[in-house]
């Protein structure tokens, strides 16, 4: 994005005046005593580059790095408050062991040494690894080092590993990766520079926190239209040109209805569809028979299309054929066939998708649905842009320009946190595809290492053996029932039941189910739960109130149902109190870290980028970074990838590991400054001075692509070659966009009993596969809503991320918590008045799972059937270095208590099924429905309430007054004569 770097704001004459003025001023800063260091922010997962001024091992100023690809010099409210995190009284200062004989949650810990802690962990893990590796469940929350933790788990040999994606936004990842090979979330960006019409679905903040803000400014500067689909109007929505106040959970029907309008008027990019998607491929139309709905391949391995010139079936992947986009055909063996596009058109031209019908479901007026579709069509087809650059397509043919249809979209948790989110996300991608806006100028652009083939070629591991690494990573992308991690009898193999019939394509696991499943022993019990950077005893669990109980539940023997809980945290979070062994991490300003190309790096659409953290402050406590702990444990446990032939440790420490580990020849965690002298990018032998090179380059690596590699990368040969060289993709074949998903159809066939492979035996599983694994995007009512009485629970309840707080971890921040230390339940004024609910009154909010008490605020900008609150503001007293009576504890509330991890109980088999998307296992946080009643007079304060947690042993009490500064201020004095003589001005 071409954000103009800041230049001097003063023009020449003013600058001259300024220089004169400067002469008379004292030196405010002692620059000679200050050091400037570059690293990467971790006040959130956006990963902005920061420039930190340090004096006397104290932070003077954290500012955005103007050269950094992500944030281009800007910082958000959190990033600017890093100082208050660094000096938080909640920082853990030593490894802690729960005192023998005390209860979990009591917070009675003794400080132990790192040697003791690591020995203890080593012993336990060694035993597990030698006997039954799946007894270790290792789950990581808001971290960004999944490449390392995932690899560690594979090497350990447990499939019970996942990061937070399952409760976060796997619907977006899967929706994109199973459709177009990249996705929303952190996988792609709108083309902020060129787009003329931007539609944002269900985003309050997202991971691209600063880039979205920079981007919106660019849109506005250029006069582009910004439409926001969101039941709530705050933040980004406030500056949208059009706010579409949708009813939660119904975006699918809105998107499909807009598709209906486009199809009715034949406003689709047929050329794009033929060249880049599978929509011309022929589908077998034999309902009720094995093979129905799969692509017709004839004798070939490749799906067939009908070549209109040759008048014959041909392999769909050939160049220079002229596939028919529409029509019904008959295979030589008599099998009836139809193009995927014909099926698609038939499906969505149905009345059920008409704006009039859709309007009733989603609350968006039919005229608006129609108008927005036609506006987008106008931009896509009448305001087309071209970039005159010669490029080579996948077949090696030269193309003289990139054609851009400048409509773009971005969507996040408003879509993903619903149990229909996967299909809704696919519906949005379908809309983009019909308009031909995928990875074209002005459209939605992938960020390297994406796009990948649909879906990426990694399969989830399912076999385990003692002392043996997994054959593939624990998480991957199933394409058919054979890929599921289930036993012969169909029962789940993973503790979170990922890749089971409950959620077959749960490619990020289901972290939200781990505690509940392990405690119930369903599917089995585990020995050790190891959590990194996840506050599962509070805001990242569904059903928090009961989760807290579960963490303390015991067997008859008196042993805890989860016998041992290890947590790595940097702060005294709620989770710490419920752990047996606490390993204190460094802060982000104190550690080495990589934001790796093997993960989701910081790439921009037009540049491959990754970055590092380099300590800028020396820790003052007995802490060790989790990265270091991982490498240390891997060495101690003798993981093959971490040991030499003789069993000797291969890597001294994390830094050494990062430099020298190679996933395959020349490919490591960091893609920049490789090769012996640091001259190679993306692939190259290890560079012993790689860390120094990153340090010299302000903590990041950025490799711009040539102009001809920047768009249409799913079919751009020069890009595909580069991506293969970088090991982002396995081959240079065209990445075909899958509007019609044969992979989903295979699961559906399994549900129909028509699959030649594993099939579910339980009726509810069959039903779910048939209903939800539609090969074309569908809309269905979210599962919770299907199972409750909608009249009894008339409101949808959702959350939003505040821009100035990151989940649970910013209430310890003395500056940020001043901005908000209590959250309210926001309601539409008209709705509240109808229900007799007054501004600032206390109410009971009840769901099928439980009830809470909280305080209401009324506003205009909320859909009438929706209530919402800011996420994760509530805290437990005593945690986070806070006093017991803080507003976060007494007045703020967690919505999580209302959200069940299981579907609403009805006495059927589904009672045991996770409250998640049936396709991906994504936690359905926003399916929540509630009723609201005024609290009785005198009922104030939030409920439920909890006992205060303990501060860590030897903690100093939190200060009552704080006045931070890194040096004594240099005052600018006003002269006495000026005081005495100056008149009015």
């Amino acid at each position: 994005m071409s954000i103009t770097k800041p230049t001097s704001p003063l023009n020449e004459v003013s600058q001259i005046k300024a220089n004169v003025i400067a002469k008379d001023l004292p030196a405010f800063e002692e620059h000679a005593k200050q050091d400037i260091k570059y690293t990467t922010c971790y006040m959130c997962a956006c990963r902005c580059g920061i420039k930190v001024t340090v004096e006397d091992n104290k932070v003077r100023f954290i500012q955005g790095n103007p050269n950094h690809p992500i944030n281009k010099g800007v910082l958000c409210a959190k990033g600017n408050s890093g100082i208050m995190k660094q000096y938080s009284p909640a920082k853990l200062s030593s490894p802690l062991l729960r005192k023998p004989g005390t209860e979990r949650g009591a917070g009675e810990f003794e400080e132990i040494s790192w040697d003791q802690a690591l020995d203890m962990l080593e012993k336990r893990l060694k035993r597990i690894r030698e006997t039954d590796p799946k007894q270790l469940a290792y789950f990581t929350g808001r971290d960004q080092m999944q490449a390392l933790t995932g690899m560690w788990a594979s090497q350990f040999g447990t499939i019970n590993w996942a990061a937070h994606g399952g409760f976060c936004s796997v619907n977006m990842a899967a929706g994109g990766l199973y459709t177009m090979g990249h996705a929303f979330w952190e996988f792609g960006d709108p083309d902020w520079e060129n787009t003329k019409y931007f539609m944002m679905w269900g985003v309050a903040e997202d991971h691209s926190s600063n880039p979205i803000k920079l981007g919106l400014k660019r849109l506005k500067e250029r006069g582009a239209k910004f439409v926001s689909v969101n039941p709530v109007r705050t933040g980004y929505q406030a500056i949208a040109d059009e706010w579409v106040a949708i009813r939660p959970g119904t975006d699918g029907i809105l998107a499909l209805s807009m598709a209906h309008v486009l199809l009715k008027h034949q406003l689709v990019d047929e050329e794009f569809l033929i060249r880049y998607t599978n929509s011309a491929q022929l589908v077998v139309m034999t309902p009720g028979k094995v093979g129905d709905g799969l692509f017709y391949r004839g004798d070939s391995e490749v799906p067939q299309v009908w070549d209109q010139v040759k008048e014959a079936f041909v392999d769909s992947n050939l160049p220079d054929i002229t596939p028919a986009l529409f029509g019904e055909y008959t295979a030589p063996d008599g099998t009836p066939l139809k193009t995927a596009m014909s099926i698609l058109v038939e499906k969505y031209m149905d009345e059920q998708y008409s704006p009039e019908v859709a309007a009733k479901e989603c609350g968006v007026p039919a005229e608006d649905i129609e108008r927005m579709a036609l506006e987008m069509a106008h931009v896509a087809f009448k305001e087309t842009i071209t970039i005159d650059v010669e490029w080579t397509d996948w077949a090696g043919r030269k193309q003289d320009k990139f054609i851009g249809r400048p409509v773009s979209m971005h969507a996040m948790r408003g879509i993903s946190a619903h149990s229909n989110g996967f299909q809704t996300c696919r519906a949005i991608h379908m809309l983009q595809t019909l308009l031909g806006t995928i990875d074209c100028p002005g459209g939605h652009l992938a960020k390297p290492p994406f796009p990948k083939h649909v879906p990426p070629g990694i399969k989830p591991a399912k076999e385990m053996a003692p002392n043996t690494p997994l054959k593939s990573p624990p998480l991957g992308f199933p394409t058919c029932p054979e890929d599921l991690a289930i036993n012969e009898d169909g029962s789940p193999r993973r503790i979170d039941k990922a890749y089971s019939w409950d959620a077959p394509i749960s490619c990020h696991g289901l972290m939200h189910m781990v505690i509940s499943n392990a405690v119930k022993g369903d599917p089995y019990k585990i020995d050790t739960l190891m959590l990194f950077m996840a506050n599962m005893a509070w805001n990242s669990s569904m059903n928090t109130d009961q989760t807290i109980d579960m963490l303390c539940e015991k067997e008859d023997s008196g042993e805890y149902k989860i016998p041992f809980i290890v947590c790595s945290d940097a702060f005294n979070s709620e989770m710490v109190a419920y752990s047996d062994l606490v390993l204190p991490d460094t802060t982000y300003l104190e550690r080495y870290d990589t934001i790796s190309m093997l993960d989701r790096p910081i790439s921009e659409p037009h540049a491959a980028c990754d970055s590092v953290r380099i300590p800028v402050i020396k820790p003052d406590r007995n802490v060790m970074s989790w990265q270091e702990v991982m490498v240390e444990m891997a060495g101690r446990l003798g993981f093959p990838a971490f040991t030499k032939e003789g069993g000797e440790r291969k890597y001294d420490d994390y830094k050494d590991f990062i430099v020298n580990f190679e996933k395959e020849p020349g490919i490591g965690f960091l893609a920049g400054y490789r090769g012996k002298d640091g001259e190679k990018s993306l692939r190259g032998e290890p560079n012993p001075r790689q860390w120094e090179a990153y340090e010299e380059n302000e903590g990041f690596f950025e490799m711009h692509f040539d102009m001809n590699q920047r768009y249409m990368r799913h079919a751009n040969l020069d890009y595909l070659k580069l991506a293969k060289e970088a090991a982002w993709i396995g081959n240079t074949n065209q990445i075909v966009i899958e509007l019609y998903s044969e992979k989903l159809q295979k699961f559906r066939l399994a549900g129909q009993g028509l699959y030649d492979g594993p099939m579910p035996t339980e009726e509810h599983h069959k039903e779910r596969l048939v209903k939800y694994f539609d090969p074309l995007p569908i809309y269905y009512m979210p599962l919770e809503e299907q199972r409750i009485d909608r009249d009894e629970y008339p409101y949808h309840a959702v959350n939003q991320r505040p821009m100035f707080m990151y989940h649970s971890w910013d209430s310890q921040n003395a500056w940020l918590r001043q901005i908000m230390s209590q959250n309210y339940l926001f309601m539409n004024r008209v709705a509240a008045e109808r229900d007799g609910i007054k501004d600032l009154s206390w109410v009971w909010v009840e769901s099928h799972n439980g009830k809470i008490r909280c305080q209401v605020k009324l506003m205009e900008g909320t859909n009438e059937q929706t209530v919402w609150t800011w996420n994760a503001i509530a805290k437990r007293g005593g945690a986070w270095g806070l006093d017991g009576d803080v507003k976060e504890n007494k007045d703020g509330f967690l919505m999580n208590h209302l959200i069940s991890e299981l579907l609403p109980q009805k006495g059927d088999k589904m009672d045991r099924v996770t409250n998640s998307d049936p396709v991906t296992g994504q936690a359905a946080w926003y399916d929540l429905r509630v009723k609201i009643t005024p609290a009785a007079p005198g009922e104030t304060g939030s409920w439920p309430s909890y006992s205060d947690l303990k501060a860590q042993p030897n903690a100093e009490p939190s200060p009552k007054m704080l006045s931070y500064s890194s040096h004594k201020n240099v005052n600018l004095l006003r002269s006495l004569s000026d005081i005495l003589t100056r008149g009015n001005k």
Partner: protein
Amino acid sequence: MKLGLVIDLDTCVGCHGCATACKQWNTSGTIGPLADKDPYGREPVGSWLNRIRSYEVDDTPNSKTVHMPMSCMHCEDADCVTVCPTGASYKRLEDGIVLVDQDKCMGCNLCSWACPYGARELDPEQGTMKKCTLCVDRIYDEKLPEAERQPACVLTCPTKSRVFGDFDDPDSEVSKLVRGRAGKQLMPELGYNPVNTYLPPRNKPVQDQIDPASLKDTVKGWVNKIIAR
């Protein structure tokens, strides 16, 4: 010179980035520290020089959410300065920046009473008046790269909704913005003549709709075109 800020209400998303950047810079800056009372207790209150307020304007269905960051406006007729008995408050002749000399303030609050914009806050620890300095310790610091000689809040704003410049210079970015976007002063009726100027939200862009060519009722209406793959 007449230095000040232009704030664009069309693009401010209310992120509070400018508020914390300001707190961060200035707590170690020339008027620092900016103390915080009860920082981990029930009523944390610190002195801030820049705060963000959010409003809903008009009623449904026309209502709109507006975020309004506010710091000192460096008024041309700044009564906060004239009322100050000690002379701690003053408006610099050179550039119009309104400052409080921390060594001279006696903490009488009168200047804060005289300020219509809530731009002054008493420091809970030092008992002196704190206010926006327009980052006088950045904008003239010749040791900083030229591009960084800007207020901390301006540098950090992720939507670039804050622009710093010389309002006396008709060709400056700020002057152009004020002219081009009909910049407004807040509470002009009080006659303080604030320098900081707000750009009102823009009108919606008009987006054409495509003129639908054909209306297909079934898939039969679609004709295959010869398009090479």
